[in-house]
């Protein structure tokens, strides 16, 4: 049961603008990998290449699900989702005027996911008990952190094997950031999910990750295998954390 993503020498961009320049990454089965970097460096473009929304100009992405290999650039996004790769988008994209439960059910709209919809719903409520309490509430009336939980849970409704989360901490209070990222860590542990997380919140993200890729101007500037390795790197400290950091 190998569910992984391999990216080799990926170049991609939009029209004349070249965003990615020879990016290579590996998200191994059951791993949680963080994609770190400030705005405009290519994090979302990598994700779009994986989801088949942007076609690479060179290099390639390989998605492996249960031992079968797939090339997302030759597939439609919906088929990639049907494979079991799901993206929780930046900014959550919930339906604010629908209830929590309706939001969750919409997560499993595609035919393949609909077959197991009751089981998926039960699983989501078990993972996020708060959502069960609020199932009849309009999702727009919940706090930002709860909404992010709902977005995650909605992603899980397709029973994915690989979960991609784009900027889960955007717009959240620090305490909720910790909560959301801890939850992502739990999911990986309990579900053996393979997780790719694009994140700006360096300290929290690196704590639950096996590996962090630090991307600058469309190139992988540094690969760190632990929280310490990443936070002690000179480059990371200079560009990301600002010059004077505690020891």
């Amino acid at each position, binding site marked *: 049961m190998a569910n992984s993503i391999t990216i080799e020498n990926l170049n991609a961009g939009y029209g004349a603008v070249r965003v990615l320049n020879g990016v290579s990454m590996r998200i191994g089965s059951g791993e949680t990998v963080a994609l770190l970097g400030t705005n405009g460096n290519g994090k979302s473009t990598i994700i779009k290449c994986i989801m088949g929304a942007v076609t690479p100009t060179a290099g390639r992405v390989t998605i492996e699900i249960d031992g079968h290999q797939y090339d997302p650039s030759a597939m439609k996004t919906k088929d990639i989702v049907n494979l079991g790769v799901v993206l929780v988008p930046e900014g959550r*994209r919930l339906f604010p005027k629908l209830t929590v439960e309706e939001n969750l059910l919409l997560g499993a*709209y*595609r035919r393949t996911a*609909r077959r197991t919809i009751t089981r998926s719903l039960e699983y989501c409520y078990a993972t996020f008990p708060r959502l069960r309490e609020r199932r009849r509430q309009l999702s727009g009336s919940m706090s930002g952190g709860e909404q992010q939980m709902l977005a995650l849970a909605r992603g899980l409704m397709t029973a994915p094997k690989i979960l991609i989360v784009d900027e889960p901490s955007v717009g959240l209070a620090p305490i909720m950031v910790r909560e959301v990222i801890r939850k992502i860590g739990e999911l990986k542990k309990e579900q053996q999910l393979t997780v790719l997380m694009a994140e700006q919140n360096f300290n929290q993200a690196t704590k639950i990750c096996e590996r962090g890729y630090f991307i600058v101007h469309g190139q992988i500037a540094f690969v760190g295998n632990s929280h310490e390795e990443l936070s002690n790197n000179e480059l990371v400290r200079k560009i990301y954390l600002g010059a004077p950091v505690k020891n």
Partner: protein
Amino acid sequence: MRRIPSWIWPVLVALFILALSRVVKNEYYMFAGYVVLQYIVLASAWNILGGYSGYVNFGSAAFFGIGAYGAVVLDKLWQPPLVVAIVFGGIVASLVGLVTAYLTLRLRGVFFAIATLALAIVLQTLVMNWDFVGGPLGYYSVRPDSIAGFPSYVNYLFVIMLGLALIAVLVARAIELSFIGRGLAAIRDNELAAECCGVPTLRLKVFATMVSGGLMGMAGAPFPYYITYLDPNSAFSLAYGINSIAMPLIGGMTHWIGPVIGAVLLAVIQQVATVTISSELNLMIVGVLLISFITLAPNGIVGLFERYRQKRQRRLST
């Protein structure tokens, strides 16, 4: 979970009204009741597209008129039974819905509303210049004196419309509770996010327009026999477009019962006003009610009820 399925209630109410129509001797009630039932069909049909997916259709009169003139065409050709005319009207109207949907559903908000309004005017002009169905002179439909098994022809029309109203309500309810309804609600809330969830937005919108238009066409088919003299101005009257928006709005657009409540309320008031004061008042009544509901109860009567229930629940739980 309730044990009795809720679809049983509309059926029971319809059966009760059917029984009532056998007892009541005064034909005026059938005559007035027909209009109320017709608006239940129009409002429920409108709500399938307008209420569930949020696409405001100003052209209900177009679909209604297609049904009515479809019946006229058939009447001139070979005078089939009314049921055939209804099915025919429904099919033609939903085909027009299909074409309209493909042409206009990429428009959003007010632009879609204007496009559908234009549809009604274009069709009215076409019929106006179509001599086969009478053009501006209109068409007199000769109706049979009575139909076997019914006390009078008006009673027969009433029962037919009762059946159509039941069908419209059950279809609206089935759509609302199905995956289609959930997809339409997602479109209403955030179309982009709906697309991202894998909701086939265009296909659902086209489907909703076809069902909505088809039901309106079916409601229009018995109309020539009801008024016996049909002209383009009455078949494509703006009043249909406005009423079928106002009724769901007043009743509540997110639940299938909303359009029914709105239609009964508004159509009964209009009928009473027509008899007691003047039919000239009808559009003004709609306007006043519409303004008061939009300002005081934007989610309609169903919304008021929901708010009350939630408040009570909160009070009980604390």
